[in-house]
């Protein structure tokens, strides 16, 4: 059995208009992460990571080794690495001076040291599916490679020139022009759609049953299984309308979790609210599951890119512990499946979904404890 034993999250519902980018848009961000970034001494993704690197928790992990341990940095897209985003001069422009620390694996190695002795340190760049895709790695390492503890740090700075420009050009984000016409971010809705970019990070510790018993811990949740898949597509940045990729990921996760479709009662959707994602994800859910409710967090905290899958899952587990499954914000239709109102958590399992450009779909199944 695989348990989620500790976690920390960082996300914000605050947003601000960035009008000095090619496609003006509102973004969810932490302004403090940019403090002094322009000096080149501070790198925004590191500042984001610091928000979830709790010194007390790190000390606990160092002082309580449990056996074979791995550290995974789910970095999402390539923007974690290399120099700062300096496409053109605006407030997001900076050039990082410490090249070694801006390389994803070096940052992972340095950060992993803070968690104690490691048997493996690795990184993942599976775009916006990254942090949920690594649940498959967590599952494999603990089930098949005798790992007792797998630590996952996921952090990505979505608020950069490159990302804002790319998503603006792809017409994936809501632009200021669209928001001025009254459009609000939402998913699976006939009127509102799309998302805002956001900054976010999450830190989560997954441990074997033996490690949990050894430490006498009370876990937050059980990870039952996870799976990632691709689909037969000719467009590497698009999604098949028939939901093939999502469906394969969901079926795989249920197979490795040894559960049936009717066991899944709550879905944390990828929920970007783009026309393409609305269609593919809804089709796959309708064809794969039986009786469920679906929610989404991107409307509330923005699209935190590589961090989004795991970060949003942890937020859902927290909300469920507080006694509710939140509605998908800005729904204009009454809907009891793709929730237009918050509800009490139904009894059953949670399935989290994520998709990433480059043709990757991930699903993970959790049992809240």
């Amino acid at each position: 059995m695989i348990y989620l034993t500790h976690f920390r999250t960082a996300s914000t519902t605050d947003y601000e208009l960035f009008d000095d980018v090619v496609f003006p848009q509102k973004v969810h961000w932490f302004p403090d992460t940019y403090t002094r970034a322009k000096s080149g001494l501070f790198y925004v993704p590191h500042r984001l990571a610091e928000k979830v690197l709790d010194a007390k928790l790190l000390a606990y992990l160092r002082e309580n080794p449990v056996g074979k341990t791995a550290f995974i940095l789910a970095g999402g897209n390539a923007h974690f690495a290399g120099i700062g985003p300096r496409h053109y001069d605006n407030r997001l422009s900076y050039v990082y001076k410490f090249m070694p620390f801006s390389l994803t694996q070096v940052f992972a190695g340095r950060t992993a040291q803070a968690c104690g002795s490691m048997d493996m340190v690795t990184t993942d760049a599976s775009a916006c599916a990254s942090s949920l895709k690594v649940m498959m790695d967590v599952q494999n390492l603990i089930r098949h490679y005798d790992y007792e503890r797998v630590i996952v740090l996921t952090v990505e700075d979505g608020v950069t020139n490159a990302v804002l420009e790319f998503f603006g050009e792809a017409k994936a984000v809501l632009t200021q022009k669209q928001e001025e016409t009254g459009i609000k971010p939402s998913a699976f809705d006939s009127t509102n759609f799309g998302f805002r970019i956001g900054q976010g990070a999450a830190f989560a510790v997954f441990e074997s049953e033996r490690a949990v018993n050894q430490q006498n811990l009370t876990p937050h949740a059980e990870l039952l299984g996870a799976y990632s898949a691709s689909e037969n597509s000719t467009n590497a940045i698009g999604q098949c309308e028939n939901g093939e990729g999502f469906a394969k990921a969901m079926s795989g996760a249920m197979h490795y979790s040894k559960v049936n479709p009717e066991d899944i009662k709550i879905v944390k959707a990828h929920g970007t609210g783009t026309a393409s994602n609305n269609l593919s994800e809804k089709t796959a859910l309708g064809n794969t599951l039986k009786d469920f409710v679906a929610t989404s967090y991107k409307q509330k905290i923005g699209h935190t890119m590589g961090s989004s899958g795991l970060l949003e899952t942890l937020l859902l587990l927290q909300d469920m512990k507080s006694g509710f499954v939140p509605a998908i914000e800005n729904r204009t239709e009454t809907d009891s499946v793709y929730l237009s109102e918050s509800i009490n958590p139904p009894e059953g399992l949670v399935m989290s979904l994520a998709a990433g450009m480059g043709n990757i779909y991930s699903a993970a199944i959790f049992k809240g404890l």
Partner: protein
Amino acid sequence: MNFLELLNAVAKLARPIHFETVSITEMETPFQEIGIDSLDGLVMMMYLTELYGIEEEVCKEWSPKTPQEMHDLLMAHKTREPASVEEAMEQCK
């Protein structure tokens, strides 16, 4: 301003949060013997060159092995100087 005091403060800032605090007490003791590795040294140098107003182009070829060598390079190329360790730490925030 006591340079060793500044160096200790910058080392604390530059090194990972879980590393034991190093104590730099001698100007001639090599950084390696103090327990400061190459990445720590790189970050420390970037902070120090920022504090002393030295361009990246000037300092990128430096590889000081001891506090004394670091001090001499900074003094030879500085365009400004922090008034105190406290002021320097404030600038590094």
